[in-house]
């Protein structure tokens, strides 16, 4: 039997997928993160979505500028450590007032094992906000669906860059013992 907490832990990536599909997101750019593994798999299996694996997160920022210019909607999936890689490319969104939906799984802030994640995890929200991105953070699994839905609407209806930070408390501990 799964506990309620385990059930919530497994359904939120499916809920994000449903929100993205309903919003006609057709391009999914990502740098892999364990927290996004299930969502990436769902998107790869979906015919209406083109998944694009990136070598660095800023590629996805630039790509999604092109997507919107071409009339398509996309999403960027990444880990908090990649936010620092995006900063200058985000200036394109500020200057052109382009929509961007980023879904960022957090590292370095809660139950972290790797001390090298702490610096970027601690500055993720501030770095995004300084770059002109609207940031909403989710630290309970039951709030994921509503927050991603609201941020998707905000990004594409108002043509603004928006990031959802999925906190480590939602994702769960990474098991380093195996």
């Amino acid at each position, binding site marked *: 039997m799964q506990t309620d907490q385990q059930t919530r832990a497994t359904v939120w990536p499916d809920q994000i997928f449903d929100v993205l599909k309903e919003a006609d997101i*057709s*391009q999914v750019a990502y740098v892999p993160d364990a927290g996004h593994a299930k969502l990436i798999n769902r998107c790869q299996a979906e015919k209406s979505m*083109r998944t*694009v*694996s*990136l*070598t*660095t997160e*800023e*590629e*996805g*920022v*630039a*790509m*999604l*500028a*092109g*997507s*919107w*210019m*071409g*009339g*398509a909607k*996309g999403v960027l999936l990444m880990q908090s450590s990649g936010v620092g890689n995006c900063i*200058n*490319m985000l*200036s*394109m969104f500020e*200057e*052109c*007032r*382009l929509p961007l939906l980023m879904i960022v799984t957090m590292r370095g802030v809660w139950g972290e094992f790797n001390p090298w994640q702490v610096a970027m995890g601690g500055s993720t929200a501030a770095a995004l906000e300084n770059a002109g991105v609207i940031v909403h953070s989710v630290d309970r699994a039951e709030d994921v669906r509503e927050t991603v839905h609201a941020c998707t609407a905000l990004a594409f209806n108002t043509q603004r860059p928006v990031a959802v930070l999925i906190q480590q408390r939602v994702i769960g501990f990474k098991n380093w013992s195996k």
Partner: protein
Amino acid sequence: MAAKKSAGLDRRKVVAALLAERGDALVVTGLGSPTYDTFAAGDHDLNFYLWGGMGGAAMVGLGLALAQPKRRVLVITGDGEMLMGLGSLATIAVEAPKNLAIAVIDNGHYGETGMQRAHTGRGVDIAGMAKAAGFKSAKTVNTASDLKEWIAAFHRKPGPVFGDIKVSAEPAPMALPVRDGTAIKYRFRTALLGADAQK
């Protein structure tokens, strides 16, 4: 060395020749001289002039090419700009968009910042890198006859196509397109999408 700088093709003539038969293609320009060269060849509603986002031009082209698979997407950028986004050559090669072609206007220097030499001017072969990444077609273009032949590939060969076009480092006359990003965006999207641009 002045003599070395004057070797190579004339960048304005190259870009004008690249765009002479653009048809209904969508054009993305990398910041700096390629943006000016493209404007000097004739302003066009379907030019997305980048004035920033260095390293991102090819990836903007990929997003556009995936969104508009029936249209040819042409990226015209500089060697320094392309060097900053080398990983995108791997990403684009893996995605293999048939409708994307990239022209690097390669003067071997950083022209906007005081003509410092770039790696491309010191032996780095970016067409070779594109080829090794898996581009269907990648070529270094050195002469006017190479260029004439390559222009056909730029417009018609199944992509992704890559050309590193060696041009002179002589500066070209000032030619500056619209800078306001939202104005560029609305002009481009309205020309491409019509009323849907406002949705």
